[in-house]
């Protein structure tokens, strides 16, 4: 057995937690956030929305099922560091191909285990999420604290540019594609792509800074604004582009393109519609958040991962109506444009990890696209 290597977490509050290292050696700085899911750590680790963050899992036993080649949400691990109560020393699952330790080490992610993760969670809940540093090399609290305080703040930070694709690319095409959908990639989770593919969409993924002209050059039937990391307000170029999409009916084309925003995509849409976003104290990260669909009264248990939210008040008087609300804290979870085929949700209908309760939203998107196409056809001829 390898000798246990120490690791330390120092928070900007000055608190520190010493434990063992189970990832790569080195240092990682990021916003420390907690996720309350009991399953799905591999999906969480590969979710680009965690860029710039160190993830703490509240479930104490992590690594039990190892990792496999299927449960990926992107090609990389995007978070900066990973913290658990106890890392499993063996893997037990028929699909597993690699241990979590190796998975993280080979991807150069430092990881910490053996600390009182509940105490840390409660600290973040009470003081709010904050920056921290996870180190396996430097153990001097003073020096670590300095590094934390010198690191970038989440507010005002455009992390999208770090995770978006550099070139447009086409996702695996379904057998007989019926619709053409363009994804604005702010850090898209692959299950969004898979979910649309299952619905018969030909999908083109575009970099976040694509212009309206570049988007229109693909003649999309629908546009998806993906999830992604960081402060939405910092991604002004995307907000501009979205504004232009919303404004399409007023242009000479006089037609609108259905738009569906998820998570960061929802926040960017909110900003483009004239609303404001703000940072939540400790965010929503987990797979058990109840959301009510205001049109049907149904409750869905949702996957969530966001630190910012759209301010409901700021939407007053705008062309927007609320469609979904979080039952835990009353925050905005979904909205739609009053007249245009545009809607968005703050949570993750593609789940992965998490419950499948909200898959219907992809159907709604498809229905919207089809209706829009029909109307265009009607008005054209």
């Amino acid at each position, binding site marked *: 057995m390898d000798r246990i290597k120490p690791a330390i977490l120092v928070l900007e509050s000055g608190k520190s937690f010493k434990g063992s290292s189970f990832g790569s050696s080195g240092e990682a700085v990021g916003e420390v956030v907690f996720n309350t899911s009991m399953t799905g750590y591999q999906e969480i680790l590969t979710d680009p929305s965690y860029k710039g963050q160190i993830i703490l899992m509240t479930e104490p036993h992590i690594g039990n099922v190892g990792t496999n080649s299927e*449960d990926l949400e992107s090609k990389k691990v995007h978070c900066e560091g990973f913290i658990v109560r106890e890392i499993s020393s063996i893997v037990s699952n028929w699909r597993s191909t690699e241990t979590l330790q190796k998975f993280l080490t080979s991807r150069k992610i430092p990881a910490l285990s053996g600390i009182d993760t509940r105490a840390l969670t*409660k600290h973040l809940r009470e003081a709010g999420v904050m920056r921290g540093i996870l180190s396996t090399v430097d153990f001097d609290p003073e020096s670590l604290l300095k590094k934390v305080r010198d690191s970038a703040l989440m507010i005002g930070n455009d992390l999208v540019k770090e995770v978006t694709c550099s070139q447009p690319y086409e996702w695996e095409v379904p057998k007989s594609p019926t619709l053409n959908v363009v994804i604005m990639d702010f850090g898209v989770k692959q299950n969004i792509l898979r979910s649309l593919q299952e619905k018969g969409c030909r999908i083109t993924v575009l970099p976040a800074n694509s212009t309206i002209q570049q988007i229109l050059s693909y003649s999309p039937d629908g546009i998806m604004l993906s999830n992604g990391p960081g402060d939405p307000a910092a991604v002004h170029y995307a907000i501009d582009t979205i504004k232009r999409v919303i404004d399409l009916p007023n242009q000479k084309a006089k037609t609108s393109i259905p738009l569906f925003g998820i998570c960061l995509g929802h926040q960017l849409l909110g900003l483009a519609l004239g609303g404001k976003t703000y940072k939540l104290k400790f965010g929503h990260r987990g797979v058990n958040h109840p959301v009510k669909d205001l049109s049907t009264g149904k409750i869905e248990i949702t996957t969530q991962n966001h630190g910012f939210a759209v301010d409901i008040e700021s939407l007053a008087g705008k062309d927007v109506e609320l469609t979904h609300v979080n039952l835990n804290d009353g925050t905005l979870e979904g909205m739609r444009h009053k007249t245009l085929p545009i809607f968005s949700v703050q949570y993750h209908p593609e789940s992965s990890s998490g419950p499948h309760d909200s898959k219907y939203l992809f159907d709604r998107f498809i229905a919207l696209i089809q209706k829009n196409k029909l109307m265009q056809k009607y008005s054209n001829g």
Partner: protein
Amino acid sequence: MGKRTDIHKILIIGSGPIIIGQACEFDYSGTQALRALKSEGYEVVLINSNPATIMTDPEFADATYVEPLTPEFLEKVIEKERPDAILPTLGGQTALNLAVTVAEKGVLKKWGVELIGAKLEAIKKAEDRKLFKEAMIKIGLDLPKSGVAYNLTEAEKISKEIGFPLIIRPSFTLAGTGSSIVYSQDEFIEAATNALDSSPISEILIEESVLGWKEFELEVMRDRLDNCVVICSIENFDPMGVHTGDSITVAPAQTLTDKEYQILRDQAFQCIRAIGVETGGSNIQFAVHPTNGRVVVIEMNPRVSRSSALASKATGFPIAKIAAKLAVGYTLDEIPNDITQKTPASFEPTLDYCVVKIPRFAFEKFTKSDQTLNSQMKSVGEVMAIGRTFKEALQKAIRGLEIGRAGLGADGNDVPGTIEEIKNKLRIPNNNRIFNVTYALEAGLNKEDIFTLSGIDPWFTQQIEEIIEMKHKIEKNSKNLSYELLKESKQFGFSDKQLAFLTQNSESDIRSLRKKEKILPTYKVVDTCAGEFPAFTPYFYSTYEEEDEGEVNPQEKKVIILGGGPNRIGQGIEFDYCCVHAVMALHEEGYKSIMVNCNPETVSTDYDISDRLYFEPLTFEDVMNIIEKEKPIGVIVQFGGQTPLNLTLPLANAGVQILGTSPNSIDVSEDRHKFGQLLKKLNLLHPEWGSATTLEDTLTVAKKLKYPVIVRPSYVLGGRGMKIVYDEKGLEEYVQKSLLEKNGKSSHPILVDRFLNNAKEVDVDAISDGESVLIAGILEHIEEAGIHSGDSACILPPQNLTHKELETIKEITEKLALGLNCKGLLNIQFAIQEGKVYILEVNPRASRTVPFISKATGVPIAKIAAKIMIGKTLKELKSQYDFSKLSLSKMKHIAVKEAVLPWVKFPGTDVLLSPEMKSTGEVMGIDSTFALAFFKSQIASGSTLPLSGKILCSLRDADKTTALPMIRSLQDIGFSLVATEGTYLYLKKNGLQVDLVKKISEGRPHVVDLIKNRQVQIVVNTPSLNEGASSDGSKIRTASIQFQVPIFTTLSALEAFKESALQIYSMKPAIEVRTLQSYFK
């Protein structure tokens, strides 16, 4: 949408007596439901025959019927109360089956009653194997290959299609009764016959074996708007093949990826929707193939269950309470989460700890029965433990089991055996399997070997291996335990006792060392949300980490109540009832109550019963940690049965204030010699006795006392190992066997008492404040002395005691209570032989009969006792409670308690009552006359008790004279008689009309055929001394149980039956139901 306003009165059906497969979890769920519905303003009616429950306390329902749970009695209640709705999903299988029966009989339609929670169709779809299978196939879910048979021919045809091994399950039975795993054609015929028999509709499912597959359970809730949530996922440590009630289970599931878990979640919702459970909780079981991941649905319970009680305690989400609210129309988002207060119940709890449940067995009482664990549930109780890791929770659970183990090994009690024995025990599931895994690892087997042999997932084995590695590390460093190692070992769940054993120290050395090093437990909150939201409920578990969340208010006046731990035979729901009453009494008197218990089935471990709940094992270490943290004014040990009582001396020695009767008095009552001296001083009679540690001495003592004698090991519970022996040969056998069990050394001596033949036994419960004594109840046993009081039926007020006897009993009780300086409850057992009153034993604690007396009289005696323990006097309490209701002469009604025995679950065990307690539960019959009260008690206990038909008599010679007049009377009121040869000749000679039946050896049809064909309606069989298991008598008794023909094995019980039958025959009274409340007006 809110609650329904079109219904006003709701009837809840309880689950009746505690039996294997249906324990106090349904008191927990029923009590929650009653409280929830009452708080919503509904009028609530309850029917439950079990007097030991909290739910039957008169203040919980508006109308409480302690009446038999049969369709006839239920209809009477419906007719009288005219409820708008019945909620049948909270009283286990009993309530569900009962609801189905009355619905099908048209009773509900006749009286205009609606089933809420689950409709008839949904219940049938879930419970009927065939309908369930069809429903699952329709929605595309995979199931094990199977077929339904209604007779043996059909069954054989299906078995050929599926191949062996296969599983046979009868429809509509409890806890898998009659289920079995069959490996060959030979076994198949017998198993299929039994199963067809045990199904009330003669229907069995024959199924592809999924033995060794991984087993998972999901606890799901649904509201009327079709919102579904998973409350808890549970993974079984024991793979498929062992009944989930007998499996070690773990929450949350540990070995599924999110993708796989979500498949189970989707399927669980599909299932609850297809079955059509409209609102409430359901439990869905899945098997998952360990190497290819194929998922099959095993079954679903359309009601709250044992698993949902576990899930409630494991997550902090009160499933039963929420189920009740959903049933009256609320939706999940309209109900607040009590724990966070700010968030709604429409969410899925997330855990930041690990929960382990381990079942507790009672095989030591049924030694002749097969002890293999299979699809028929055999455990009698369970323990739950919470830790931050599986390792910690597992070790805590094992020490909470009270099976003499301090954790997973490392306590000097390991008995590994040879490698072949170890392998064998891994192959065949048994209650020791968890220890066998440690033996196997120590013997060099690896995780894969263990998986191949047992199907136990390597992840679990790895955790066990890590515990063993830690054990070796501690041993290696035993002379010099570092801070880090000591802390880590505590995080691995090692008890001080284990550490003491490993380092050759005493437990107190380790404790001192820990305290010196400041390695103290930290208490964390069970909050449903892994710390995401602040929690307002003080529900704690211990672990060894950095932050302690259990902030203590030193200003509060608080009292710790120690619960009873896992249910077992001899210590069950009665003690939980008493503990809950102690909590209520403390609240009434302005004290804060702190509950410590580790039994997830109980009301006492509901987080909103006490002010603080510590879900912890009841060991000295764990309890002392809480005491040192909380600094209560005292600890109540009297109410949780023998478990807390055993902690009295160690706690007192550690300086803890024991409330009520002093530790010294408890010691006097438990120590034979000291007690003997006290009796001598008070000039009271007791059967002569002696004690010895060797065979020779035992024989000498017995000779002096004269046979028969009653022998037992000292310090036992529930008459464990107790036996009446009639001669030297019997005694020799007994002593040799008991020495053998202890590996030849007997640390506790064997006690020998003179056995009082043909003596009446009487139980007395009394309350003393040290100055005066209140007799709460004098209970006359129906069975004579020599049969464990827990197994004996008893009557309140007594019917056959003379005034003088009663007065003597009262006098002695007062003398003893004051002599022992009791403060609180005490229970005395008396034997009356030829007018002389002997003291058999004294227990200075709440007894099993306390709830029965409270239900029979309407006086909450446990509450009164608790108040005395915190300093009130009987004089002061007189104004608060009406003690005159306890007056035997003033009682206008009669209550009969009957024991319920688990014979059906332990085939091979002779169905005889003895000094060793075997019953799991009790029922009460209450009415204006003995005849009716007794009749009701028999019906409630599951006997059909016919008032006409044929009686089969097979009596031992010694009983024939006494039995003759009883049998004659029964013949006089119309019973016909059939008897085996000896009895036949005797009855005939005495002028009775009787038929002869062949003994088994005399050819067919013989006596057992008669029972099998149900050609007799009652069996009277009294066993001769030293009767072997292969005797006709034994087979007669076994057949009676198997084919559910009422049987009397004692003449005293026959006499009670005769009395009752005669009265009913002559007076033809109308059998009526009455609320408990109405008896106390």
